[in-house]
């Protein structure tokens, strides 16, 4: 028994234990509470709603691992969405060709990456706190976007944009496919690439990392640029899902992305955190929300339950650490 337990004590299992346990808890509780919960419809709604929050959470993940933050994720996404919308409008609106759309997507990704790059440069060179830098960027982008759109919606896209938000491929929603791809790329980058390695090291001790011959400024700039790029992808998906772009869409997601990271075991001080547990944590949150919805609970109540879940997880983690250290003492 203890040998089997010991074999389970790998870093992967330890990372997945928290969100995995929450997954099972949500699954069991709602299956018992409602016979409709374990249905294709539930999973369909999870799969359609998850990607926006998920992609933004991936954008938040790498800055948090470096010990920073990117509070500008949602407005960066809005700006990228606006970029696509304007380019489409200026080139025929609903009549625009796929080639125009492709150009628009590339431009949007460039806009997102640029927003991240600017934050990265400021953080890397001035050593200003990432919360302040990204907060400034967030306010700048919001103001700029509201000024340019006069606070209104931009809509009227060609028909072929619709499947990006609502279509399915092999039974899996397209936004979900994009998100899954993002998770895989982020996972490989964090666990296997030099950039990922350096991201963790910087999160624990940026000076010691610099003394080890790593260009820490370059890494920080790259991390925020990639974060901005991921925001842009989220922005394009959101545009296709809502069929319109409006500055402020998804604004409430910012703090949820931070909490999803922590639920997924990302260390609040930086240095530790993996993409896959964060993915499971996101699924937990979305299932919880869908489950409450099926039970007829108010959407606001669902948000309150998310908060409760996160507090519960923090208390459980504390308990696990205590029990584990007691066991370690006992063994000696």
């Amino acid at each position, binding site marked *: 028994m203890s040998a089997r337990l010991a074999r389970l004590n790998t870093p992967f299992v330890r990372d997945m234990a928290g969100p995995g346990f929450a997954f099972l808890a949500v699954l069991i509780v709602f299956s018992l509470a409602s016979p409709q919960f374990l249905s294709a419809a539930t999973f369909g709604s999870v799969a359609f709603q998850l990607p926006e929050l998920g992609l933004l959470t991936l954008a938040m993940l790498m800055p948090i691992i470096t010990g920073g933050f990117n509070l500008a994720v949602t407005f960066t996404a809005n700006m990228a969405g606006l970029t696509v919308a304007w380019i489409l409008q200026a080139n025929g609106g609903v009549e625009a060709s796929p080639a125009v759309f492709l150009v628009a997507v590339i431009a949007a990704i460039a806009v997102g990456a640029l927003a991240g790059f600017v934050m990265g440069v400021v953080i890397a060179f001035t050593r200003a706190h990432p919360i302040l830098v990204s907060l400034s960027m967030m306010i700048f982008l919001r103001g700029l976007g509201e000024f340019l759109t006069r606070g209104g919606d931009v809509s009227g896209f060609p028909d072929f944009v619709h499947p990006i938000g609502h279509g399915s491929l092999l039974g899996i929603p397209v936004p979900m496919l994009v998100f899954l791809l993002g998770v895989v790329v982020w996972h490989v980058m964090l666990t296997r690439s030099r950039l990922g390695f350096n991201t963790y090291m910087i999160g*624990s001790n940026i000076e010691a*990392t610099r003394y*080890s*011959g790593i260009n820490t400024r370059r890494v920080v700039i790259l991390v925020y640029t990639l974060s901005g790029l991921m925001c842009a992808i989220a922005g394009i998906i959101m545009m296709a899902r809502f069929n319109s772009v409006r500055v402020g869409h998804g604004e409430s997601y910012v703090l949820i992305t931070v909490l999803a990271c922590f639920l997924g075991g990302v260390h609040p001080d930086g*240095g530790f955190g993996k993409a896959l547990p964060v993915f499971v944590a996101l699924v937990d949150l979305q299932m919880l929300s869908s489950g409450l919805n099926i039970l007829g609970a108010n959407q606001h109540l669902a948000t309150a339950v998310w908060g409760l879940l996160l507090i519960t997880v923090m208390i459980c983690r504390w308990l696990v650490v205590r029990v584990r250290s007691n066991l370690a*003492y006992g063994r000696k």
Partner: protein
Amino acid sequence: MDETVGDKPLLSLRNINITFGGVRALRDVSFELRAGEVHCIAGENGSGKSTLIKIITGVYRPADGAEIEFAGKRYAHMSPVQANAGGIKVIWQDLALFPEMSVAENIAFSEVVGRGVRLVDYDRIRAIALAALARLGVSLDVDAPLKAFPIAQRQIVAIARALVGEARIVFMDEPTASLTQSETDNLLAIVRNLAASGVAVVFVSHRLAEVLDISSRITVLRDGRLVGVYPAEGMTQSRITELMTGRTFDAQVRAASRQDRPVVVAVDGLSRPSQFSDISFEVRQGETLGITGLLGSGRTELAMTLFGMLKPAAGSIRLDGQPVHFSSNRDAIDAGIAYLSEDRLSLGLIQAQSIADNLVIASLGRILSGGLIAPDKKAGLVARWIADLGVKIGKPEDAISTLSGGNQQRVAIAKWLATKPRLLILDAPTVGVDVGARAGIFDIVARLADSGLAIILISDEVPEVYFNADRVLHMAQGRVVGCYDPRAYTLHDIEAAVYG
């Protein structure tokens, strides 16, 4: 001598046992302290020094059967309140002061806050602080915020605070760790005054020279057991080391001439304004160049310039005869220069991360496969160096902070050896490393030199460079003021020049 120094000890402990999670941290230890003496507790990390102090100050409770006698009263164990009220004070290494508050507030803190007084009487605070400082024979601006003072003065503030109220025993944990030589001398003078006024001082320090200088008796602990209590008179550093480690170290000068070997690095007229100027030397293959000098002599800045992290204002660095200009330490690493930082805790290693990651961080390029880190190559590199340098670890995934100072330093050296350097700069490689483990570090250094590596060994402890380097440069105020061949000089000659 004061008349309070009598035969009857002020404090005595017998049959002290304590167990933490099944490990016996102290085994049948006894300890005795007389009023007016400076008593040193010596022992390696983990020998039980701090556990013993914590029992005396009431933090830990010893196992049944312990006998504690303090000021004529017997206790089975002491509570922190009893210890404090009885005048047993501790100055921990981190001082536990409040940098934003004034000197006076820091000194009088416990007197004012501890008494539950609701209104603050600043005149009384100043009076308490001035009285405590006067007792030490020190004058400081008591109204200035503590953060305005360097560490040496903060140390004095911490001592003054301990004296407020009736101090009978003062414990000082590594009080000189971050002081320069002259600051240390000042502190030792204050400690002597304190002892002369009848207070018993318990002094814990890694620096054996000052232990011998200041204390009258030395209690040596090893692996939680009492080795013995010895008068400082007639004791030598090497004898204490033997008692602490249970091994003998015969220090022998390793120096030899390497003039026939090719020059690896040649520095000519290297200068940086207000840090160092006109530094010239050569290091040959297999040669160890020692650089010694006090803190602020410019030795670390010189090392960081060689490592590409600072740019020289004048002068040249040549590697194998070719002039080199580094724009970052990455350039220096790629050219074959490695620099082991003097600050292992915050610059040398990333404490929270794993042993394996710390080991490969500077040589990621060597474990890539198809642009990604190859886990098998990484594991192979780690396993090889762990074995080669004899590092004692649990698993490579464990945090490096779980290792002892000596083993951490071995990993830090391995990290740099993995970059395949030609010149290895070791800046204070034994800071925070136990006496026993130091010898192991220098064995590694000797082996590396024999394998042809050029080494620059920087230390403010003259014996380290004297016994382990082929030549010793003495730096002071940014200049090379002396160059010694250890075969032609005695240790005392060089120490007199450096510390004198």
